């Protein structure tokens, strides 16, 4: 009996583990090794160069641009996305009651999630287009033509334009996530708060927010990882891509160009490994920060 159970468990786990090792762990391991070599992508052999590739990263001005931009995205994208997501979810469930048509709103908010990032990049490229784009045409139509800008071609605006797209494309998902978390809060807590005379804002701050903390924490980790990426949208939408002059360069794009454009797979792997550790650190910090006391609901 016991033996049969163990065999069943092994039979269920081993294939999945084997796939994981072959398709997830081994590529990771290989890139760790390649980051210490000068492999050019087509040679049958690679020469060991030690930490040389990592030493180069510090002097690569384009890579440093990328790190700076990813840092800005990391500071802005999760915070703004979660703020908007919480606000919209909170409005859909004010005081614990559902809003009429709340479901329909959720579905509409979720739409961007159904599009691939490449499609989103192409569509927003059209929206930002300087002469015929939706934004500038709209501004001109209402007599605000002086506010029309070359959104993706001005260094001071390009990164903001990219972050706006990232936020737009992910807010819907978090509205749905936070809505589910809010729905899981017992109704009587909201009723008690209302009886105690709490207004909408106080209820949100004192009841809703503490009880969806777990979800917010998860959202921070996911959005943090997304903010360290940004490759697809930048590659499709921006000038250069990654421009103008490095203004929207991200680590993923540097990595891609170094590997597939410059054929420096060893150096590109070093970028990948650096990004891996940055993401890992972020995840650890975010989870540690959230390890405080949890609210127990009866």
């Amino acid at each position, binding site marked *: 009996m016991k033996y049969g159970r163990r065999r069943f468990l092994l039979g269920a786990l081993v294939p999945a583990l084997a796939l994981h090792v072959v398709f997830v762990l081994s590529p990771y391991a290989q890139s760790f*090794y390649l980051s210490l070599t000068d492999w050019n992508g087509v040679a049958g052999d690679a020469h060991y160069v030690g930490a040389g590739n990592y030493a180069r990263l510090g002097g690569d001005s384009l890579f440093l641009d990328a790190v700076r931009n990813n840092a800005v995205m990391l500071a802005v994208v999760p915070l703004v996305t979660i703020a908007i997501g919480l606000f919209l979810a909170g409005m859909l469930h004010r005081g614990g009651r559902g809003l009429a048509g709340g479901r329909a709103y959720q579905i509409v908010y979720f739409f961007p999630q159904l599009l691939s990032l490449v499609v989103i990049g192409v569509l927003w490229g059209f929206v930002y287009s300087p002469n015929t784009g939706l934004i500038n045409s709209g501004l001109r139509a209402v007599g605000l033509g002086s506010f029309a800008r070359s959104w993706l071609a001005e260094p001071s605006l390009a990164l903001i334009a990219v972050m706006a797209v990232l936020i737009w494309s992910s807010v819907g998902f978090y509205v749905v996530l936070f809505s589910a978390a809010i729905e899981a809060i017992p109704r009587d807590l909201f009723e008690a708060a209302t009886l105690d005379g709490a207004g909408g804002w106080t209820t949100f701050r004192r009841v809703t927010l503490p009880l969806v903390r777990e979800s917010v924490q998860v959202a921070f980790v996911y959005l943090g990882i997304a903010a360290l990426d940004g490759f697809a949208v930048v590659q499709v939408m921006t000038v250069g891509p990654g421009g103008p002059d490095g203004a929207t360069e991200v680590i993923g794009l540097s990595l891609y160009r170094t590997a597939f454009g410059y054929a420096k797979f060893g150096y590109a792997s070093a970028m990948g490994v650096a990004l891996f550790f940055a993401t890992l650190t972020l995840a650890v910090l975010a989870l540690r920060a959230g390890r405080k006391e949890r609210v127990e609901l009866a």
Partner: protein
Amino acid sequence: MNSESQVRPYPHRRSVLKTAVTAAVAAPLLSGCVTAGGKKETASAGAAKTADNPLGVKADSPLEVVVFKGGYGDDYATRAEARYAARYPKAKLDHKGLQKVGEAMQPRFVAGNPPDVVDNTGAGRLDIATLVSADQVSDLAELLDAPALDNPGQKLRETLLPGVVDDGTFGGKAVALNFTYTVWGIWYSKPFFEQRGWSYPQTWDDMVALCATIKKSGVAPWTYQGKYPEYLNDPLLSMAAKIGGPDLVTAVDNLEPGAWRADGLAQAAAAFAELAGKGYIMSGSEALSHTEAQAAWCQKKAAFIPCGSWLESEQKGVAPAGFDMVMSPVPSRGNDRLPFTAVEAASSESFVVPSKAKNPQGGMEYLRILFSRASATAFAQANNTLPAVAGATDGLTLSSGLGSVRDAITAAGRDTFVYRFRTWYAPLAKAVDDATGELVNKRLNPADWATRIQKAADALAKDSSVTKYTR
């Protein structure tokens, strides 16, 4: 309800760390995987060389051809294969027309079993300089010295347009043979100019004067494919090459100290900064993709656009009837060392015979057939594109754009030039593109433009990890 009991949708901190440690430990064990190809000797024993079989092709060796199936399709390649099959009926032919040649061929080069001919072209092609430094491609000298198929009195190398052999030469070895010929210049609609009474300026002063007239008439004088600033680099660097002559081009390509501070480059940068400064570039151009900018130009919102000779076929269906675009050389700056008619011209659609191919002689023979006059003429007719074979368009009726390109080559004679640093040193090309984008958006002045690029070139010259080439 207990929030603790919810399943965590994210990996636990410990599990993440554990995974990372496992990966790091496993690294040396799995390290052989990517580069395990090893070295393999080629079995290149060919047959005897005769007048009819100058490359010594073994008649029964199979031949595998991989072609980029892009804008030109791959009919031209299959036609040459049919002719190969007619000459060597015992050979088994394998044809592959691919869009992502690089992606498909990279593992085969690494594993040491590449095909016999590869058309290394299109987005994601393998970096040719890298293939050369990894010793993955054969020397084609034997093919270039073999008699041309249609004209046995001439060697194959003598039937090619100027610069074609040089374009495929790396470190003194001809390793790639390019099938199409591209010329860069400035394009405009001939009927539109005639109707407005404008004529194409031969000097930059006339260009600036004409731009003032064009702007007054409500049309933007210039536009460019702003999303990809390299399009504007072509006329800028062409102007510099005409001012400074071949010495300037060689100095730039050889990464000589101070090459980017040459007077020719300074004057050319100043010219394009002036174009931007006087507002002669259509506003918004800086953020337009090539399709958007070229469409705006076809709608006569702008008079001039810089581009290579592929523009006409790219705008098929976009350019209105009677638009009749033509290409002209970049105007002269004044006392140039090259005449106005000089053009930047280079070959592309790069065919290589991998050094580890099983039938390299067959691969070269295939290229001898592909580069014959008959094959090139059929290609020109089908694709409205100049092939790299001289005289391939003789006697054909050409469209206005292709006709102007052929006339430009004829007028240029031996005065064609090309910069090689774009293919040799891709990171330097990126630095130049970024700097030029900033220059024409008035965020960088010509002096800083030169300083910035010179810095990038100097860094590259010092970088011992990059294989250097000279010309």
